[in-house]
């Protein structure tokens, strides 16, 4: 059975990635791991990732820079930070500049992490549904508009005093 969502974990420590993957192994989404920002960008490019969890301080690139780039290239992806640097300035920068959904600190609580991811995915699902629905509504409206141009008055519905529709 194909899982509906893909979650990408990015951290420069493989042991952290393995532990996270273990604690998420029974969750109803697929877990991908990347041990560097480059690998992370690669996975993003190859698979459609719904949610990304990343440390914000990593070798090569600043984690915030990485997340900014993800936000720019994949705006539909939910971004969560998981870091050992519990420093407020960084958290604010990450949330403002990186458009981060949540800021989690290490050591993390497995249960909290799982709940956070589920809520985020629900959030994402709602977003997508909402977008799909608005698109549908928009499409319907367009059809109506087209009909009205071809047959003026066709979208007008007239009723009599009893509520019966007049044709």
């Amino acid at each position, binding site marked *: 059975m194909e899982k509906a969502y893909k979650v990408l974990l990015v951290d420069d420590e493989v042991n952290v990635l393995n532990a996270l993957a*273990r604690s998420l192994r029974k969750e109803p989404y697929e877990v991908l791991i990347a041990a560097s920002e480059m690998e992370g960008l690669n996975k993003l490019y190859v698979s459609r990732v719904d949610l990304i969890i990343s440390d914000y301080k990593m070798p090569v690139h600043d984690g915030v820079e990485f997340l900014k780039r993800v936000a720019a290239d994949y705006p539909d992806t939910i971004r969560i930070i998981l870091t*050992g*640097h519990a420093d407020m300035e960084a958290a604010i920068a990450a949330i403002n500049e990186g458009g981060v959904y949540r800021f989690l600190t290490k050591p993390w609580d497995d249960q909290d992490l799982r709940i956070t991811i589920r809520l985020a995915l629900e959030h994402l699902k709602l977003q997508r549904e909402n977008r799909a629905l608005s698109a549908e509504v928009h499409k319907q409206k367009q059809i109506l508009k087209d009909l009205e141009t071809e047959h003026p008055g066709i979208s007008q519905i007239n009723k009599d005093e009893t509520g019966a529709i007049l044709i």
Partner: protein
Amino acid sequence: MDQMSAPNILILDDDLFARVVYSEILSKAGYRVSAFGTVAEAIEAFRGNPTGVVLLDLFLGDENGIKILPQFLEISPDTSVLIITAHASLDTAVEAIHSGAYDYVVKPIQPEDLVNAVRRGREKHDLRAENRRLVGELIGQVHQLELIGRISTTITSTLELDPLLNLVMEHTQNLLQAEASSLMIMDESGLELRIAVALGPKAEKLEHQTIKLGQGIAGWVAAERKPLFVPDTSRDSRFDKNFDRDSGFQTRSLLAAPLLVRGKVVGVIEVINRKDGRAFSDLDLGLLLSFSPHIAVAIENARITDDLKKSHEKLESRVNERTRELSQALGDVEKSNVQLKHAQAQLIQSEKLAGLGQLAAGVAHEINNPIGYIQSNLNSLQEYFQDLLGLISRQTEFLSAWKRKDREKISELARELDELGRKTNLDGLVSDLGRLVDETRQGTERVSKIVKNLKAFARADSGKPEPVNLNERLEETLTVINNELKYKAEVVREFGDIPRVMGMPGELNQVFLNLLVNAAQAIPKRGEIRIRTFAQDGHVGVEIKDNGAGIPEENLPRIFDPFFTTKAPGKGTGLGLSVAYGIVEKHKGRIEVDSKVGQGTRFTVFLPTGE
């Protein structure tokens, strides 16, 4: 040029701009300055007018300043030579001090520092000159004293006044067959006689009594400068009867003679009552007068000796006083040195604490990573066990059904087991168990290593130098600041086979920490930090090289100055390098720096192996 307008400071610097600036500063402070750009000119001028202070730039274009220094001192040893040096060459400045410079001023020159240093130099020069003059004076006095002493001993056997006079009076009394005798010495005012020697019965009562000029027989003799022969005191109105009343002695007849040296009365000699009861005669007076001049000369000699001794003592006490003052001044300097050392130690401590605070955040991350996955892995392990226990209990049920040959149950459980095995991903779980335990163990090892190194790093030194393996110290420091470095740079270690050095491990950690943190901060995005250790000429060298921003040339002389920082306010104390410099200096080592903007910086710490 007259004395008033003659320069009292000479400046030798090949940099015209520097000459103008120094001249300006010192002229404003009231000094008369002459400045020269070449050694030859300066030496020639100095020979004509050896100034009290010479300002000497260490790195003259043509000759090294240290080699010129003795030339000045040879011409005028009292001159204070003040060295101007760049901070990076402080060791040379120290060398200059060993060669006779009295102090150094570090570039860039602060006007007040320069003026103060010159003022100290002048004071030192004046003190040295005055001391030299005093010593010369003293030597002259001693020579004079020795000469007089030699002449005097040919006349008298002793220069000690009191024993000499006693001896003379005993001889005189015996010679004149007198019952008693006394010797009176004129005081410095010339108005009063003091009884210096009194011999005979009741004589002790007279000792140290004084007689005014004109009072009694002795007073008359001193005033008139004439000898006197009194056959019967009861018939002479000049005799002061109070003496007899005071002493309880009866004076019948006496002889008195003034003691004259070059016409000046130095004392009076009196002999009293002939032992045979007869009155003194002219003959006796003649006898007394025949040797009284010798006594006079002896008294005068002894007095001169005494005076000389006193002035010698006075001089000596002046010299002693001056020496005391000097040594006190020296003591004050030492005291302020101790205070400075103390303040420096406190600075080092506070810098260390600031550094530790900064490290704490980094170390927290280092520890939070492994703690994170250790905790998570333990949770997963528990879940694995629950899954496995569920499987085992189903398998046990399956086995008992197998034994009962309950076919229906067997097929039901087989289906369940199959499904459960798939659901728990049994194969994956079993193969992951070993990895999980391994990784968790790695985590605990990492945490304990970090804590151990942090403890080693932060420990207080015992206060006594101990053998230190710098490679180990560097490893320790690197673990502690790994978090600061790994996001900025690739750390390349080129550790050589190096001997131990004697030192304070904690302080040396601080030095490496400061240099490594600086290196990381100098790198804008990502670069390389190369750490090399090597042994060279009785030293161990530790080279820390980055390929970061580099230090602008105008900042290079100031980087070791306390509180010098190019970071934003509140971002750096400006003490890191200054503290490092202080520590290395304390270890009798040195720090060399080599930097190019855009290419990077190399700091090399040299520490003596102390063989």
